[in-house]
């Protein structure tokens, strides 16, 4: 599993910022003005690279007949040929329904596209206090018969004060509680370096120090946690869950160089970073059932 970083500074030689003329309308909200009127376009002397017709990566090889469509690999060339290029290679324009079917077939080969919207994760402490105030009012109506008994102190003789134990490991329960507020989150990104503790899904398998997270190869700085990909992402990628060889993870943690360094030569624009995978532990309910069925009384 590899991860690469490719980034450009805001002032660069490839894209230029273009302000649109809509300045009058956006006087009300400066924030919106800054975001909605900005657009980027390529600088004049930059020629965009040709992209593979199937996946959008760099297209190095062209179709040998028409030289119009380029591909990144032989596999995609064959796939595009079968999906519909075979009929319309060499022709100027193909009829609309066939072109639509062609693009649909190509889309089926890729993961589905979604929009990621980003929101801030509320601070746990404040959020709990806020929510509990509202919800205890609601719950009060449902449980009118249940009132805590008179304020007698429970004798601490036999009774243990802790919660009941369950088979599921504690780290997973905390993880589930944290994502409950936004169950469909797919990426957790940390912007500041004082909050860079990732949300682990189990106690085992946490990446350790320099062994799992090597230092940056280019500048030697110790890598820091930047973002993690959550397992909910697998729901949206329409991966077949029944195939036991399909990809599955607990969480993918990406550690990057804190100084965002890049190598000296201008051609090298991809910098490798470190990625760690943490799987779920095998604790869970059901183990007790199996043990009970097999006569183990523990």
């Amino acid at each position, binding site marked *: 599993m590899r991860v690469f970083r490719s980034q450009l500074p805001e002032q660069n030689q490839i894209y230029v910022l273009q302000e649109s003329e*809509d300045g009058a*309308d956006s006087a009300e*909200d400066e924030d*919106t003005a800054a*975001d*909605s*009127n900005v*657009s*980027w376009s390529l600088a004049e002397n930059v020629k965009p690279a040709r992209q593979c017709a199937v996946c959008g990566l760099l297209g190095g090889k062209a179709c040998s007949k028409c030289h119009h469509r380029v591909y990144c690999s032989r596999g995609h060339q064959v796939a595009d040929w079968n999906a519909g290029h075979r009929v319309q290679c060499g022709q100027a324009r193909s009829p609309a329904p066939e072109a639509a079917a062609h693009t649909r077939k190509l889309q089926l080969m890729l993961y589905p596209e979604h*929009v990621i*919207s*980003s*929101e801030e994760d509320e601070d746990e402490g404040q959020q709990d206090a806020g929510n*509990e105030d509202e919800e*205890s009012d*609601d719950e*009060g109506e449902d*449980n009118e018969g*249940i009132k*805590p*008994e008179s*304020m*007698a*102190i*429970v004798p601490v003789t*036999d*009774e*243990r*004060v*802790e*919660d*009941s134990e*369950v*088979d*599921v490991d504690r780290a997973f329960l905390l993880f*589930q509680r944290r994502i409950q507020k936004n*169950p*469909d989150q797919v990426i957790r990104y940390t912007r500041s370096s004082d909050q860079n503790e990732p949300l682990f*899904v189990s106690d085992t398998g946490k990446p350790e120090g320099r062994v799992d997270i090597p230092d940056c190869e280019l500048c030697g700085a110790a890598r820091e946690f930047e973002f993690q990909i*959550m*397992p*909910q992402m697998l*729901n949206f990628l329409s991966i077949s*869950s*029944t195939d*036991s060889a399909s990809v599955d993870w607990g969480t993918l943690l990406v550690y990057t160089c804190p100084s965002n360094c890049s190598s000296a030569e201008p051609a090298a624009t991809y910098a490798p970073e470190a990625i760690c995978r943490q799987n*779920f532990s*095998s*604790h*869970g*309910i*059901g183990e*007790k*059932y*199996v*043990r*009970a*069925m097999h*006569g*183990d009384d523990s």
Partner: protein
Amino acid sequence: MADSAPADSRGGRGGFGRGRGTRGRGGRGRGGRGRGRRDDGEQAWVPVTKLGRLVKDGKIKSIEQVYLFSLPIKEYQIVDAFLPKLKDEVMKITPVQKQTRAGQRTRFKAFVAIGDSNGHVGLGVKCAKEVATAIRGAIILAKLSVIPVRRGYWGSTLGAPHTVPAKVTGKCGSVVCRLVPAPRGTGIVAAPTPKKILTLAGIIDCYTTSRGSTKTLGNFVKAAFVAISNTYSFLTPDLWAETALTKDPYQEFTDFLAKEAAKKSKY
């Protein structure tokens, strides 16, 4: 995110300025509105584990199938999906106090028993600063501790099983709770506390005997729960015969479960 709603409503005017650069903002508004709460106050479940995804898609039919191949269940929503008719009952809420430098810190401890009156029962205990949080947490813990109950006959094996299969006992702290098979029509002869759990478990007739400080509800209810969970660990003569593992080759999902079992057996 107060500015995301007005930004959307001005979409018509700023229409041509909204190109690639504004996709993010539109998405944010969409996400905020679409992520609304359903009527029961909970948000839709997005499964996290592979088993959760299979269950949400409806590929696995019953919880016994999962237990048979000993796949761990980590999400309580899976139990919810298999047993939709689970009824929860709050048995007691007590305040518990701890002495701190700044006075006393009071928390509330909630005991919740959950069951479908047809062979599955769970017990959850949670301590929290507010009553509602304690109850909610206890319900989740109860769902995560759901256990199957084996029922049997007192005399003739005519009709559905109605009582415990044998005399079972459970102990917690100083409380010992013993369940004894009873003939049909007896009902549950027990103190109110274990009676609630036995009803939720689906046991129709039962004699019980208890000993120890049954006033401590926590230990009493846990002892009854342990006794019920021992019904499946009791070896009766009808379990002597060896059962062969059957696998239906035409169901691809049973296949997946079997592959998981094979992987596990390689350890």
